[in-house]
């Protein structure tokens, strides 16, 4: 008895919902058909309001004289930099060698002099010939 009542209820429910489901399916099919018919038509784009893109004209080539002038300035600047650097290196004796002397034993001092004992050379430059 209970089973029968249940089956009846199920059938009633199906009778209520099935027609609407079929109807919806039919509506969907109609929309798809309509869309397929209009597929060839252009769809609106989100940037439709923007002006069409313009291609920039090709940039002008830099004049050769400018290139030569630039290279010349760079060469002069490099030369000056190198000249000043070499002067500084030379002044600092960066690449040069240092020469030293060994100090030997105390030497007897002459003429009461503590630094120079008379090792002197002279010349006259007014006219030829040494003193």
């Amino acid at each position: 008895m209970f089973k029968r009542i249940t089956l009846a209820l199920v059938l009633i429910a199906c009778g209520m919902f099935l027609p609407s489901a079929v109807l919806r399916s039919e509506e969907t099919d109609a929309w798809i058909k309509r869309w397929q018919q209009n597929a060839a038509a252009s769809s609106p784009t989100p940037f439709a309001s923007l002006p069409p893109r313009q291609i920039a004209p090709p940039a002008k080539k830099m004049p050769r004289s400018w290139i030569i002038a630039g290279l010349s300035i760079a060469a002069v600047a490099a030369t000056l930099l190198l000249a000043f650097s070499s002067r500084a290196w030379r002044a600092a004796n960066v690449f040069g060698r240092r020469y030293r002397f060994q100090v030997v034993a105390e030497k007897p001092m002459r003429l009461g002099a503590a630094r120079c004992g008379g090792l002197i050379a002279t010349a006259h430059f007014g006219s030829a010939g040494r003193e």
Partner: protein
Amino acid sequence: MTTSDQEAQTLPAAPDVRCPSCGTVLDPAGEQCGNCKLTLRRLDLKFGTIPRHANYVTDRTERLPIIAVERAREELRLFERRFPQSPLSVFVVDLTKGQAASEYAFWLANRGRFGLAEAIGAKNFDLLLLLDTGNRNVALAAGYGLEGLVTASQLAGVVDAVAKNLRDENFAGAVDACIGRLSEILRTASEQSLQSTTPVQSDV
């Protein structure tokens, strides 16, 4: 200046050291010249006050172009970098007729403070180039340390080269010639010194 404990060696007495006044060969330990009785004290009385002087170049005549002096100073600075023990100074002065350049150079090299104060005796490798524009003489004085390493004839070659340039009034050329010749001589002297002697002191 540092001193090592190594035993000192004695150089042979320099045979060509002559009296700055009369040119007589000096006794290695003579208190005065055997001929003219010259002493440094006598020269003190003769020349008086020590003139003001600077490192590298002093121009008492104030006739040299500043550019030439500056250039010479730079060259001398470089020379001292090459030979740190041997500062070379140039002193330009007008001496009067009775004043000998050799006497003045000898006196100034001893009384002036061109190099290190502690460079005394064998530790003194200083060089002084004196240009006497009054009598047109040039003198080059070397410290005790260079005796035995540099000869008087080598120094004579240097002053001859200097004099040659000074005849043309070429001060810069004279300094260049002096530096060039001295560099050659001192380079050789340094190598000989390091090979032949036992080191006593590392630097001055």
